[in-house]
């Protein structure tokens, strides 16, 4: 098994597909590569779980084809696909011991006993479940139960992919970090395709090689955590990734100049005319540096938040609020100041999508 291909997959839970609003998941093409860890990131209700359930076969898509390598599995039932899935809330089999819980997926597939035992031991070791192996699962804490669920997802050696649907929601914050690093270690050790659904950007950015950002049933951007940070392809990505999110300033663009209110800003490239379309300038707070009055663009400082590692200034650029970084050596400024944009960090968004300028 090397990859999973979504070929125009779309899903509508009710109504006739075709009406845009009825889609929980809009038509989507994507290839999931073997050995990669993906994170599906987006706000609640954006179609992440639907997409996951389509891959595992719990939901049959209304349109499109799903391919495992070259094999069409769109209509294949879940148990015939080699997919493991871990759910948001712990699912354990009450009447079984922890060991029996972990062995359950293997036993159902008729593996030899010795192989099952070895595999259960290995997974229990990774997840620190070894001391509990012979205990009844129903008496354990939510943390431990979710570890069992994770274990059942990881226990099968032959799976094409392991899907995680916000698996750490019920876990204590401290343990969360630990489990996430464990998952990452497992991923490196077993070289399997993992898809991890979350609405927590930190979780997504620390876990995944590739992050898939979704909103309202469509994929906005697929990229490495660095891509998402440095070149958000969509204003939503800029706003959703990073804390605080990207500054977005409404602007009018002519050639290589942008006008925000009464201020003119020099751009790196030249842009064609966008008539009747919304243009926005995007700059991350990390790349907008506060400076002495007279330098860069004039701003009014409203408030400075000291976050310990960094100080952020809430400023007004003309009539538009934005956030800028206060340099280490600068005393806390009040009133008029300037703001400098790091070169190459200013992005132009037309109708919310990033547009690359032609070289000047």
């Amino acid at each position: 098994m090397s990859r999973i291909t979504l070929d125009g997959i779309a899903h509508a839970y009710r109504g006739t597909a075709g009406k845009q609003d009825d889609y929980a998941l809009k038509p989507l093409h994507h290839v999931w590569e073997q050995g990669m860890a993906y994170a599906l990131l987006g706000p609640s209700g954006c179609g992440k779980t639907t997409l996951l359930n389509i891959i595992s076969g719990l939901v049959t898509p209304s349109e499109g084809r799903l391919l495992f390598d070259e094999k069409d599995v769109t209509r294949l039932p879940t148990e015939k696909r080699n997919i493991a899935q871990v759910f948001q809330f712990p699912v354990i089999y009450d009447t079984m011991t922890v060991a029996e819980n972990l062995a359950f997926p293997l036993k159902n597939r008729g593996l030899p006993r010795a192989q099952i035992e070895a595999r259960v031991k290995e997974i229990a070791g990774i997840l620190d479940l070894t001391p509990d192996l012979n205990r009844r699962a129903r008496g354990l804490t939510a943390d431990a139960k979710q570890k069992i669920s994770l274990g059942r997802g990881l226990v099968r050696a032959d799976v094409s992919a392991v899907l995680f649907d916000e698996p750490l929601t019920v876990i204590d914050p401290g343990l969360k970090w630990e489990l996430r690093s464990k998952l990452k270690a497992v991923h490196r050790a077993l070289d399997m395709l993992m898809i991890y659904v979350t609405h927590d950007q930190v979780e997504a950015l620390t876990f995944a090689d590739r992050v898939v950002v979704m909103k309202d049933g469509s994929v906005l951007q697929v990229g490495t955590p660095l891509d998402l940070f440095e070149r958000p392809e969509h204003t939503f990505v800029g706003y959703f990734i990073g804390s605080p999110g990207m500054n977005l300033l409404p602007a009018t663009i002519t050639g290589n100049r942008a006008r925000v209110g009464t201020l003119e800003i020099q751009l790196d490239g030249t842009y064609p005319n966008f008539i009747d379309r919304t243009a926005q300038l995007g700059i991350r707070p990390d790349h907008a540096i506060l400076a002495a009055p007279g330098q860069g663009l004039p701003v009014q400082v409203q408030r400075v938040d000291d976050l310990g590692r960094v100080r952020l200034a809430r400023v007004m650029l003309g009539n538009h609020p934005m956030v800028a970084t206060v340099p280490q050596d600068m005393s806390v400024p009040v009133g008029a100041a300037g703001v400098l944009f790091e070169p190459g960090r200013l992005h132009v968004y037309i109708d919310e999508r990033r547009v690359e300028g032609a070289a000047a």
Partner: protein
Amino acid sequence: MNDKPVNNRAWFFVLPVLIIVLFSALLPLMTVVNYSVQDTIGQNSFFWNGAAWFRELLDPTTDLGDRFAGALQRNLVFSFIILIIEVPLGIAISLCMPRSGWKVGPTLVIMALPLLIPWNVVGTIWQIFGRIDIGLLGYFINSLGIDYNYTGDAASAWFTVVAMDVWHWTSLVALLCFAGLKAIPDAYYQAARIDGASRLSVFRNIELPKLRRVLVIAILLRFMDSFMIYTEPFVVTGGGPGNSTTFISVDLVKIALGEFDLGRAAALSLVYNIIILAVCWLFFTVTTHLDQREGRPS
């Protein structure tokens, strides 16, 4: 520290309840206790009889003791049979009931219908249904060549009474189980599919364990109700033929109202009551104890 204000006038708020309970439960019960330790020679003159009625009741060599032992045995056998039939059947039906869509409403209404019919009407329905001359069931069974007659044959009478109870009360078990099944989150079924579990395995490892609490309630209710059964067998068979379907309650009414033997009837009532209380207490204690031994409830 207890710093709640003490005000004895608060007793007035409790008083109405105390008075109602006094008249509705305590006084009637104490009257029965009073009768159970006295004998009468009529004309409303009673005299102390000690525990004699109880001794007679619990001694199978006496006439009363013999009647009681027989009826108790029949009661226990009856409860056992209907539990053995109704619980598995109820679970099976609940598994077949639709859990979503427009079919849910009509199914629930149909399932609830037998529960809404008054006891003596159920008795009358089956009394006619089982008759060999005009009853559909009786006529049909006889036309198959099986000798069925609930007024003359004990086996036929038992069959009728058991069938009637199953018809009347299986719905209750099924509806309780249905509610229990509905409460199982979808994720459990999805996880089972991911894990490649068979249908049987899903039932054994997910549905049955999750139904445990509901089943405890269902068994308790059905045991109590069947142990106290009176109206239906009274209407259908009147306790006969002979005394083959005479349950404790049927006999109790005979002794108390037919023979007007207040002392014996009172003693029988109290013992009957204590048996039910004891069984319920035992059942409840054992099941809650099991829960605690297995750790915190999930």
